[in-house]
Every structure is written in C-alpha cells, then in structure tokens.
C-alpha cells in the first residue's frame, strides 16, 4: 500500500498531467462529436431521401467501426499529417457522432406528434419546427443517455495511448515500464479515472431524476 502511495507521490506530476490530457481530449471529442451527432440525427429526418441515406450510411459505418480502428485509420491512414492529439480527437468524435446521433434521434422521436402537427397548422417551416419545437425538447429527453455515453467516451480516450498521445494511460504505462510497478501504476490510473467517472455518474443520475420529476 505504501508502495502505491510512494509511486503516486513520485510520479504525481506526470500522472496528473496525463489526466489533464485525457480530460482535454474528452472535451474536444464532445465539442466536435455531439454537434455532429445532432446534425446526423436531424439529417435522418430530412425530406430528401438522399440526405437521409447519407446520414444512415455515415452512422452505420461509424458505429460498425471499432473506436480503435477509427483511431489508427485517422492517424496513419489520412494523407494529411495531424498531431496525435488532434487525430485522436477527430477519430473519437466520429465515433461519438455516430453513436449519439442514434440517442438524439430517439429523443427527437419522443416529441409528441400533436405538437408537430400544431406547428404545421401554424405554418411554421420544417426548419423552424425542428429548431424551435423538436430539438429543444428532444435533447432534453436524450440528455441522460447522452451524459452516460459521454462517460463511456471519456474512458475510451485511453485508446489514444496506441498512437502515443500522452494521456493518463500512456503516462502510467511509460512509468511502469521503467520501474516495473505495473500493478501500482495501473491501479493509480484506474483510481484517477474513477475520480472523474463516479461523480459524473452521480451527476447523470441526478439530472435524469430532475428531468423525470419535471415532465
């Protein structure tokens, strides 16, 4: 036990920096991926069949491709040179967009048909009905599962260590391979991830409760 504490104190700087990189990567992933998911969800309701098909193909390919494969594909496969961090953010955003579009789609579908009919009768254009009536309510419905998915994606940022992004997992591994305290360091990494995910889960449950009470 003291060994674990010692390792943590010794490598505190690297580990905390690693956690910082993990969090930044996750935030950038959400900033790019969630609007992407919304866009795909809205596109799947478009009147033009071509747009709908395009959205469905994107989503199915995105969901069908493992995040790790997506990561390697963007980093090694794209003909442009991007930093490892940016590649990871793009790859994880694509996965996030594909998965969250399905979650958001479900939320948008949950908006009562009568309200959409009322919007039609008032003469609102499809775009305004979507923006002013369907999306605000649909996102509210989708919020708890979206937060849940964000927690999963935060954990998926560990995959970025495979392309040498200096996030928490990569830091732990690199320290461990020099002092061979694999158990200690991965345990510490796990605890640090839990430090974020457990409060985030509690927060998600609270939000879900609150929304359930007010509808």
């Amino acid at each position, binding site marked *: 036990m003291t060994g674990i504490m010692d390792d943590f104190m010794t490598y505190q700087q690297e580990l905390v920096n690693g956690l910082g990189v993990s969090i930044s990567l996750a935030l950038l992933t959400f900033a790019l991926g969630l609007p992407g998911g919304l866009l795909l969800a809205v596109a799947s309701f478009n009147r033009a069949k071509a747009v709908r098909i395009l959205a469905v193909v994107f989503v199915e390919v995105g969901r069908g491709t493992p995040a790790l494969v997506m990561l390697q594909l963007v980093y090694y496969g794209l003909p442009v040179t991007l930093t490892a961090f940016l590649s990871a953010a793009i790859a994880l955003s694509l996965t996030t967009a594909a998965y969250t579009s399905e979650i958001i789609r479900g939320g948008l579908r949950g908006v009562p048909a009568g309200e959409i009919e*009322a919007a039609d009768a008032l*003469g609102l254009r499809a775009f305004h009905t979507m923006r002013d*009536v369907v999306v605000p309510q649909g996102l509210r419905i989708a919020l708890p599962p979206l937060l849940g998915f964000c927690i999963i994606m935060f954990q998926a940022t560990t995959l970025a260590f495979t392309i040498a992004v200096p996030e928490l997992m990569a830091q732990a591994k690199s320290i461990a391979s020099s002092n061979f305290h694999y158990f200690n360091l991965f345990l510490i990494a796990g605890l640090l991830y839990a430090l974020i995910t457990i409060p985030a889960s509690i927060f998600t449950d609270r939000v879900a409760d609150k929304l359930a009470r007010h509808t």
Partner: protein
Amino acid sequence: MGHGISEAIVDPIQRPDSPAIRLHNVDKRFGEHTVLDQVSLSVDPGQVLALIGPSGAGKSTLLRCINLLERPTGGTITVDGVTIEAGHTVSANELAKLRSRVGMVFQSFNLFPHMTALKNIALPQQRVLGRSKKEAEDRAHALLKRVGLADKAQQYPTRCSGGQQQRIAIARALALDPKVMLFDEPTSALDPEVGLEVLRVMRELADEGMTMAVVTHEMQFARNVSDHLVVMSQGRILEEGDPRQIFANPQQQRTREFLRAVLERE
C-alpha cells in the same frame, strides 16, 4: 410584416359572393376504406359552421382536410381565394399560402410545453409573419387579455388548467390573423365546467364575425351559436341547414337517432 411569405397574406379582394371555405367533392380513401365520400360544402365569410355526427363519421378528417393536415385523395379545397386541387403534389408555397389563412385549435391543445404562454403565442408570429419580437409580444399580451389570461403570460402550459391551455391555444392561432378558424372538438378533453370558458371565448369570436368551422359534441353550442349545421355519418353529409330547424325537425332517420342519443344524455 412585409417580407417573405407575409406578402401572400395581403388581403385578396373580398367578393361578397365568394365563400370563405369551399369544399368540392372531397374524397379521402385509405386503400379500400373510404373516410370521406364526395363531400361538398361552403361557409360564407363570418359564418359559423358546426359539424356534428357519430364518431367515425369523418368530421375531424374533413376539418383537417381544410388546412391539409390530412391530404384529400380527390376534390378541391378553396380557402379565402386559395384553391388546392387534390391529387397533385402541393408545393411548399401553396401550403404556406393556405395555412396562413387558417388557424386551428386541437382537442389536445398541442401547446409547446417548453415555452411560456407568451412565447407560444409570440414565436409563431415571428417565424411565420416575420414580426419583430416586440410586436409579437405586444400582440400576444393583447390576445391573452382578450381570452382572460393576462396574468398567465409567463406561465408554462403544464402549470395551466386544460381550459386555460385551450384558451392560450386559441390566442396562438388568432395571433397569425387567420381568415378562418378551425376547431377540432375543442372541449372534448375538458371537464364540462371548464369547457364553458372555452366556449365563451369561441362565442365571442363568432360574435365578432370570425369565420369558423367547429367539430363538436356540444349540442348547445351547435344549436345556439352556429349559423349552419352539418350532420355527418359514414363519410357523407346526412343533412345540413339551419341548426334550429334540424334540431327541431330532422329530416333523416339517422339524424333523428343521433340527436335523440346525444340530447337525452344532456
């Protein structure tokens, strides 16, 4: 006003002889099933039409054909000079033109629950007529006052009673200056007592000369407020004419049965 689709709303010349609503041979079929069978009727400007009849008669479907929430499979629909022929694809422009003339009130109110009463009434004006926020909100306040809900402007719909919600919904429709108002069983989801406050607003509207088409089970309203009564059954018009006359002396056996059934209940 003055840009976008609001230009289409500028009053066409009101010929005294042209009806506000005219349906000609309107058909609605789902495969083998016929919901509306060659229905024709017309409503003059300022007239109140009441549609009654047993459930499943096609009253609501007919009403919903007037603003094309339901697409008829045959016939023509004319509202305030805008004619739509069934069977060809309706352009977005035609649809906007038609709907700008028609307000609708639903049985289940269908207010937007994430907006205050004020915003429910103001937002459509901004989006559809291009009014400024200030202009739209002023109008919304005036209409809320008119339906007796001046103090509910900042309230969300779920915090309002059913009767209040329905009156907000009426204000929302009126805010767009429709030429014609459609009411689809506006009091059916309400307690009888609460329904009265909605009927009072509708009656005032009728007195002010609004052209209205009302699907209703409120026989008192049909008898006392409407100018023209249409009795429907099985997708057809059974009989139509002066409400008092039909109530006093129905010509059709089916009408007699229906009126006996509903009036004996009251």
